[in-house]
């Protein structure tokens, strides 16, 4: 069990400047398997930069990200070849975009959207690919009768659920989510959160969720990082940070939630 005791993802001193503009500075944390970390903060606080650094879509100016691959070896992601990184991205990782159109192929059918990762890792049996797609659509509560419709005909909530199915079909161990409930109305948000919470527990997913919505953080995450001006100002257990915030900014953030 010493293997599972090692963290899945380790970030150390991550720093990113866009020219002279600070993206984020000196972010360090580690994430274990099955653990959900929420990154909260206002717009421009460096949340999305951090997520892109973690998922190797951006290269940091300083610091590193290490990840424990499926073979148990922890490696610096900057040392992986592009082919290895791509493979990681379509097998062991998921990335849920705020705008589902970025994460989906809008003009091909839902079934092909879900099946794409399977085909990319070498599945060549149409019936089995389709069968798996049906299962996943069912799991994310999309009417399986709509498997051949392109997501352009789907509502916002359905697109987001389809995006989740597309990401989870290869049973990743780590999912990055950038404002997964952004732009959805409240009842759809609630349903999506419920679904996500169920899937995360059921599959033992580790996740990094970027959000400005503290309710999302409270529902889904075990731990919270509060970011401001590109730096992490508070980091702790979710209930601890939300119920007993230490930093003035965190207090402000928590007190900005409208009373129910």
């Amino acid at each position, binding site marked *: 069990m010493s293997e599972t005791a090692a963290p899945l993802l380790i970030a150390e001193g991550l720093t990113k400047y866009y020219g002279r503009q600070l993206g984020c500075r000196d972010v360090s944390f580690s994430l274990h398997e099955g653990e959900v970390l929420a990154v909260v903060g206002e717009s421009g606080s460096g949340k999305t930069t951090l997520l892109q650094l973690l998922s190797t879509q951006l290269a940091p100016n300083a610091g590193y990200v290490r990840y424990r691959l499926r073979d148990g070896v922890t490696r610096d992601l900057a040392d992986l070849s592009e082919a290895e990184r791509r493979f990681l991205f379509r097998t062991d990782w998921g990335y849920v975009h705020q705008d589902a159109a970025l994460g989906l192929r809008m003009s091909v*059918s839902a079934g092909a959207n879900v099946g794409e990762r399977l085909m990319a890792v070498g599945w060549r049996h149409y019936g089995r690919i389709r069968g798996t797609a049906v299962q996943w659509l069912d799991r994310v509560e999309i009417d399986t009768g709509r498997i051949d419709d392109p997501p352009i005909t789907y509502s916002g909530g359905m697109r987001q659920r389809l995006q989740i199915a597309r990401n989870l079909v290869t049973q990743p161990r780590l999912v990055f989510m950038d404002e997964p409930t952004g732009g959805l109305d409240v009842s759809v948000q609630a349903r999506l959160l419920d679904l996500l919470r169920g899937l995360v527990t059921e599959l033992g997913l580790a996740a990094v969720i970027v959000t400005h919505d503290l309710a999302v953080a409270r529902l889904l995450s075990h731990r919270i990082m509060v970011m401001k001006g590109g730096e992490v100002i508070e980091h702790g257990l979710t209930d601890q940070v939300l119920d007993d915030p230490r930093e003035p900014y965190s207090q402000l953030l928590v007190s900005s939630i409208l009373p129910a």
Partner: protein
Amino acid sequence: MNASAYNFAYLDEQTKRMIRRAILKAIAIPGYQVPFASREMPMPYGWGTGGVQVTASILGPDDVLKVIDQGSDDTTNAVSIRKFFAKTAGVRTTTHTPEASIIQTRHRIPETPLTEDQVLVFQVPIPEPLRFLEPRETETRRMHALADYGLMHVKLYEDIARHGHIATTYAYPVKVDGRYVMDPSPTPKFDNPKMDDCAALQLFGAGREKRIYAIPPHTKVVSLDFEDHPFEPSRTPKTCGLCGADDTYLDEVVTDDKGGRLFVCSDSDYCEQRRGAEKTA
């Protein structure tokens, strides 16, 4: 203008050398699209400017040239390109497949099996098989580099989901030598099996898109498919109305306005040879 004012085969020698280098590179990496500095040709894009440049740079004075357009030797594109080289290079031309040393083709592979002594030059409109799935050239190049071809199967999946079978009938994607996925130009998929282990060298030129690629002789060419929906070369289940062949690719010819139609071999030379043989027999 006097024909002697042209350099041999229209292009200047430096241009031909440049194109030959691209061709050699293409042969060295089967299925890989080699960029080249495509020239303006005295014909519009879409009329075979890529194929003509490839032919011009491999043509020698002793070559015998055949040009086909949709299988036929007698349609506009074939006639004009054949005349173009007859005028600018003075080479002998033919319509008879076994006599030709270079065959430039738009979308068909002759029915007569090709030999080691022949070169088949394809005119290609869109060389990138992933183009309609991924519009970014930077991204498609990266996908080729990393052999990241899952997307190609997404297209085939879509076909089956929509039509119940793989409905792509031309420009059917192939994997060359176990590595590069290639668009075999808009040849009907009936011709795909002929590309596999073909004795002749196959060259592909795309003038507007400035790409050359190649299949060296006796290279493995596999049409992509699913295990439970295997590749099937398709043809109209009829016989040729002129020569009676039941194993060739057929064109449909409307003969009147009362629904009359005739199916004939698309390969006009092959059809004529068969009819000639019948007469003498």
